[in-house]
């Protein structure tokens, strides 16, 4: 395993006492995700921390250079497995940006709704896992139960519970089911109710609050300089939300607020997530109301979208189309583009380089929690060991995304 490459001498200079090394991870009970933190302690206090990631590096970017543009979707899915739909949509938007196409309105609303549902899951799991690691197991069970409600919808729509691979360039894999709106309308209130119940258990809990409030404070300027985005940045008081700052799809027609923290500590991060869940619920409501009930889901361009399967088996034109897209891949104009969306943890960026062929030349993912995790070191320096757990939890590091 990787040795701690800070020499002890300078540690000795700073401290009369012998500092103690503590190794958290890569598989630590009190920390989800696979990260290893090498701590240098004096007693309970953390003098130095070396955060080492990469234990879940799966070569995402390398694999993308080996298939067609559409074969990237399964990989994006597994980058952020807590809210795969957001990554799906993000990547689809990036490729569509290069192709210069926009999907039909119905599809945009569909994407928004599914995306926000995924955001619900993301925030719930983050909060849930965090309080589980703080010993509050019951709220986690509530949140997990609430997530099941949403996953039922995903399963109904996409056929998969977790990794949907449902996004497509120029549309979605299939149109919404007949009962889509009813299902969502029925599920969301139940989810919110469960969340409220969970909150009741947490927000009056002295221990919980003490471990959150005033712990892991990140100032506005540092958060910016560190490249933080999303909830963690907003909790530090910067109202930056891609959905507001650079509205994509139909977010500009949605009326929702961006919760902003004041202190930038764990508590703010936690509360921002809780509030965003409610905002997402609002967005879903409006989106469902505005979403047209019929109309095409995919753009009408044989060079991009797959033909209907039954045509493929019966007509030569569809067969040719299918062949072209599957065997050669859809051709993306040569060039480079950076597309960014608001994912669960913040700005999810895709920097794509195409050489005009059916295969990506380079797919660069800019994972939001990569930036936030590198802030962990600063957050826990000088803190106590127990503070590592809630701080790390509140950053919501997703292994697959952070380690690519």
């Amino acid at each position, binding site marked *: 395993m*990787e040795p701690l*490459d800070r020499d002890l001498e300078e540690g000795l200079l700073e401290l009369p006492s012998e500092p103690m090394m503590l190794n958290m991870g890569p598989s630590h009970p009190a920390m989800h995700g696979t990260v290893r933190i090498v701590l240098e302690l004096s007693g309970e206090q953390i003098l130095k921390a070396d955060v080492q*990631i*990469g234990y879940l*590096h799966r*070569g995402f*970017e*390398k*694999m993308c*250079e*080996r*298939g*067609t543009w559409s074969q990237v979707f399964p990989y994006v899915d597994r980058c952020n497995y807590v809210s795969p739909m957001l990554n799906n949509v993000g990547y689809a938007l990036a490729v569509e*940006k*290069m192709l*210069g196409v926009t999907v039909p309105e119905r599809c945009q609303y569909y994407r928004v709704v599914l995306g926000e549902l995924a955001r619900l899951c993301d925030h719930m799991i983050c909060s849930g896992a965090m309080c589980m690691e703080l010993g509050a197991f019951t709220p986690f069970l509530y949140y997990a139960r609430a997530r099941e409600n949403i996953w039922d919808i995903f399963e109904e729509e996409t056929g998969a519970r977790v990794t949907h691979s449902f996004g497509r360039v120029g549309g979605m894999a299939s149109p919404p089911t007949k009962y889509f709106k009813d299902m969502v309308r029925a599920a969301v209130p139940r989810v919110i109710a469960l969340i409220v119940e969970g909150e009741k258990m947490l927000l009056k809990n002295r221990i919980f609050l003490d471990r959150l409030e005033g712990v892991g404070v990140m100032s506005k300027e*540092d958060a*910016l*300089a*560190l*490249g*933080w985005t999303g909830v963690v940045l907003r909790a530090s008081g*910067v109202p*930056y939300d891609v959905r507001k*700052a*650079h509205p994509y799809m139909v977010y500009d027609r949605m009326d929702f607020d961006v919760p902003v923290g004041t202190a930038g500590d764990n508590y703010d991060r936690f509360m921002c997530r809780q509030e965003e869940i409610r905002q997402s619920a609002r967005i879903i409501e409006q989106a469902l109301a505005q979403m047209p009930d019929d109309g095409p889901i995919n753009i009408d361009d044989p060079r991009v979208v797959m033909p209907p399967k039954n045509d493929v088996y019966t007509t030569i034109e569809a067969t040719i189309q299918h062949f072209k897209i599957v*065997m*050669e*891949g859809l051709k993306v104009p040569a*060039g*480079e*583009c*950076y597309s*960014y969306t608001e994912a669960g943890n913040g*700005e999810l*960026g895709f*920097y794509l*380089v195409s*050489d005009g*062929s*059916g*295969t990506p*030349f*380079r797919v*660069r993912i*800019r994972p939001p929690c*990569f*930036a936030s*995790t*590198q802030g962990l070191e600063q957050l826990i320096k000088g803190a106590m060991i127990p503070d590592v757990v809630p701080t790390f939890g509140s950053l919501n590091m997703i292994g697959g995304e952070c*380690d*690519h």
Partner: protein
Amino acid sequence: MSKRVLEILGERFGHDVLETHSQFGDDTAVVNPARWLEIATFLRDDSRCAMNMFVDITAVDYLGRQTPRFEVVMHLRSLERGHRVRLKARVGDEDGQNAEIDSVVSVWKGANWFEREAFDMFGVVFRGHPDLRRLLMYPEFVGYPLRKDYPADKIQPLVEFRNVPGKLPPFGPDEGMSFGRQTHDYRRDEPGGEAN
């Protein structure tokens, strides 16, 4: 909307801004790697640019397509003005040697891990980086996986594998991801005879 930034850069740094283009709505400036740090600092401090949000640093390997071989790509955003710009610098020669560029950690400390990752994956050395070591791969790893000439399925195990008698590997030599579409075969100059 950030074409303005390109103009500012142009008039401030003259022909050290090698080329600029705006494609798919992104504005890009390819700059002289020697003045990388200087330009970065300017972009952050100049009130008209105010690029105080660091977004991303990565590299791209154009083996056999252009020299210098690597492109270091940086994305920046301004919180106040809400505009973005992409900064690129070309470094490194054919065999991947002396790919070096200044580190911008002193400008945005967020660049720290991003530069470490770029170093880890491409072997681009960032001068003046506080601690430049591998981030995602383990120290024992030899080579730079995201370079085009690193075979995607070449593993370097840390623990020796058990040999289970009669157990087949999950992928045979001709199976798995190496499924042979005309991907970027850095040895061939032309895309095969497929054109005929």
